[in-house]
């Protein structure tokens, strides 16, 4: 999730063509980069390089940092948190050495608070709003790291949330990403039975497959999932993909309610010739492979590479390739630094990892060698002319062994092909929902990136899932009372 899609916003005019379902998983790193060498560094050395980007606070650091919180009333940080975590309350609990209480405060608002603590762009959310980020201090309380501290150190003898008495209601959740998991947990809490249908082998969505490895280390997505499922009443069925072997109409008939958290499964295409040539692929595909790899030294290494895009996924891709040992990593964006989706914090990470950030250059042509493999790319130089992006008429070439496209994710139209799906009102390409996360079809709710509501962030998806669960619960219980 993150701001992968902020990159998408920057390339709105680019044509979008989702791969046909059967092709999606087929396009793998192995196929398209098999001609590249492997990293020279040993596996252990690579594992070390991919360690925690932001190491956890020590107990002493947490004590000092929590004491900096002013315990604001109507706190701006809470207002800035899409999942409405009571930040002053949990930090005060940490200060009073009540780390369990702190964790429960966080989890009651955001059951994926552990991954949010690691992947949230806090510099544009809670920490930007922190009153200690004012002009006199410029030093916000490190809320993200304190949140991680609480959740890392809390030890619950049993799952901290108890399920309500069984309601007899069954709800289907499509997609086991942050939105779906959050929704499922909240529904289970209210006593409902939940079945999650997930296309992939593992649950977790982008936390499992799409976030830079150094941001979520030690298999955190799976550990968090394990904790979440401890509440009981949630079954995950893998290998079910909407539009392929899962029908919206059938789910709608079989379950009391339905929640769609299907994300943005398709990577935007560049719209250039040779786009499927060996050496060119979506950054998300490479990152997925990297995250699932047990031995990073077996991954193909593009010693010279180009990453297209300006969102956090582009940064994640470039930095990871640099860590693998690439000596020449260029991140190319067609506009300027100010327009980049990646935050200043993310840009700094890129620079610290020897990534060269090139702006005002638009992909023009994929350059191939004799074997038809990527050897580089030609870019047109761009500029703004009366607010419109124009080519200056100049162009230049960059040599590269591989090109990774991170120009944004798009809604996978193939997922909504059955008749009922056709009835879902859309907003742009995404699913329209009201403030209660209900779609235009009664009984069907949706949240996360597949909807047009809110920002494309993990924490936003968690909030959507939670709010949708509450709306579903209210709706089902009202109906039950009426019956």
């Amino acid at each position, binding site marked *: 999730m993150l701001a992968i899609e902020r990159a998408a916003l920057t390339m709105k005019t680019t044509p979008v063509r989702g791969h046909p379902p059967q092709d999606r998983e087929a396009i793998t790193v192995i196929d398209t980069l098999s001609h590249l060498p492997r990293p020279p560094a040993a596996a252990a050395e690579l594992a070390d390089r991919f360690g925690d980007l932001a190491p956890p606070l020590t107990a002493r650091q947490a*004590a*000092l940092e929590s*004491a900096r919180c*002013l*315990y*604001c*009333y*109507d*706190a*701006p940080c809470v*207002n800035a948190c899409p999942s409405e975590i009571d930040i002053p309350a949990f930090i005060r609990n940490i*200060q009073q050495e009540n780390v369990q209480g702190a964790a429960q405060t966080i989890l009651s608002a955001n059951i994926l608070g552990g991954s949010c603590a690691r992947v949230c762009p806090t510099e544009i959310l809670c920490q930007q709003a922190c*009153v*200690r980020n*004012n002009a*006199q201090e410029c030093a916000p309380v490190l809320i993200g790291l304190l949140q991680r501290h609480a959740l890392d150190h809390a030890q619950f003898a049993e799952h901290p949330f108890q399920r309500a008495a069984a309601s007899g209601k069954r709800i289907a959740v499509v997609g086991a990403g942050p939105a779906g998991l959050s929704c499922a947990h909240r529904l289970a809490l209210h006593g409902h039975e939940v079945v999650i249908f997930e296309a992939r082998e593992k649950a977790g969505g982008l936390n499992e497959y799409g976030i830079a490895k150094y941001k979520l280390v030690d298999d955190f997505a799976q550990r968090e999932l394990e904790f979440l499922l401890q509440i009981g009443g949630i079954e995950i069925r893998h290998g079910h993909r909407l539009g392929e072997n899962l029908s919206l109409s059938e789910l709608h008939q079989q379950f009391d309610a339905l929640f769609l958290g299907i994300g943005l499964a398709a990577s935007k295409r560049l719209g250039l010739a040779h786009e499927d040539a060996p050496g060119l692929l979506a950054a998300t595909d490479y990152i997925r492979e990297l995250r699932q790899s047990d031995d990073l030294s077996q991954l193909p290494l593009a010693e010279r590479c180009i990453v297209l895009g300006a969102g956090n996924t582009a940064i994640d891709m470039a930095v990871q390739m640099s860590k693998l040992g690439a000596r020449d990593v260029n991140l190319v964006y067609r506009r300027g630094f100010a327009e980049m989706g990646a935050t200043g914090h993310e840009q700094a990470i890129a620079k610290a990892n020897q990534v060269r950030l090139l702006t005002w250059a638009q992909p023009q042509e994929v350059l191939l060698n004799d074997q038809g493999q990527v050897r580089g790319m030609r870019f047109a130089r761009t500029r703004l002319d009366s607010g419109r992006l124009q080519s200056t008429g100049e162009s230049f070439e960059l040599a590269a062994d591989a090109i990774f496209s991170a120009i944004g994710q798009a809604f996978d139209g193939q997922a909504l092909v059955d008749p009922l799906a056709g009835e879902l009102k859309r907003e742009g390409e995404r699913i329209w929902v009201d403030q209660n996360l209900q779609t235009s079809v009664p009984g069907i709710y949706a949240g996360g990136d597949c909807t047009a509501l809110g920002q494309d962030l993990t924490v936003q998806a968690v909030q959507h899932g939670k709010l949708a669960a509450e709306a579903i619960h209210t709706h089902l219980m009202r109906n039950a009372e009426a019956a």
Partner: protein
Amino acid sequence: MADLSIEFAGIKAPNPFWLASAPPTDKAYNVIRAFEAGWGGVVWKTLGEDPAAVNVSSRYSAHFGANREVLGFNNIELITDRSLEINLREITQVKKAWPDRALIVSLMVPCVEESWKTILPLVEATGCDGIELNFGCPHGMPERGMGAAVGQVPEYVERVTRWCKSYCALPVIVKLTPNITDIRTAARAAYRGGADAVSLINTINSITSVDLERMVANPIVGSQSTHGGYCGSAVKPIALNMVAEIARDPETRGLPICGIGGIGSWRDAAEFVALGCGAVQVCTAAMLHGFRIVEQMQDGLSRWMDSQGYQSLADFSGKAVGNTTDWKYLDINYQVIARIDQDACIGCGRCHIACEDTAHQAIASLEQADGTHKYEVIDAECVGCNLCQITCPVQDCIEMVAQDTGKPFLDWQHDPRNPYRVAS
């Protein structure tokens, strides 16, 4: 540069910063280090009759702030645990080596004339500059009829002070215990007994914390604890009040006062002097940071005095005493109202919730279009209590602005609303 040298109750010192009678002044080694660091004087840790006291382990505990800063400090240590002979010999040597520094000897012997008559000539023979009578130690010694057990009985204070004045020629400073209802009673007794000065406050009975695992208070001795004496910055407000009480008491007016209690900076010291002190004593701050703190205390005080045009301590000693009065003399018609500097406000909302929940509902929280809040004082509701200014984390963001009420000075004694008003 301002002249920091003083003459206090006949005792000369190059500066008003003295180390209080406590562990830092227990022996020659420490005292020499203190003098090397620049302290103007030292009150040698309390001497008693042989055999010397015996101490327990452990001895100290603290009241911590959120960042583990020590707000208050507590000890259960007794008077010196070294023999009288060793102490007297060291005092003699140190005074000889450091003739320009004030060296005062703290004493505590049983409340028997013979005991004082015996020890005083021995102390005087060391060449020290004065004696301080320890009538304040609140822990351990009172159980043996000494320390605070004396200080809490005005007759004893007066009697022992008189013995001291008659059996030695040295200036006598009486150190007062704050564990008493009215500090003036003890000060008056010392004054009647002929004391040349009083010093205060000694430590306050305290338990700083309880170990909730072991269910025993701190500091822990085996499986037990006992109350100790509280000092450090937390006690400064109590000490300042007691100093002011004595300074403005007509019965003891003019009696030199040596201020003690939570002094850790030049500003603390200046405040004690403003309320009537001629010298100050420091202990806890030195115990936490070492003797070097006296450098910043001297430097800061003299620069501040220069900025104010004060050439000596006497120029501002007691200058705030006249403005410290009884409640009944305060101007009922004076009115201040809080003013929030919106440019400085960081929007934490603390002023609002403090006023809303616990005071006068005088600060409105106005939600803005972007979800943030703006805080505004409702003048008609504000009583000028200062709570918002105190809870505000931003220095000078909230100002208490005096209002022109158009009303004359009026104190409660003359207020028509007072049924017991003074007839005019």
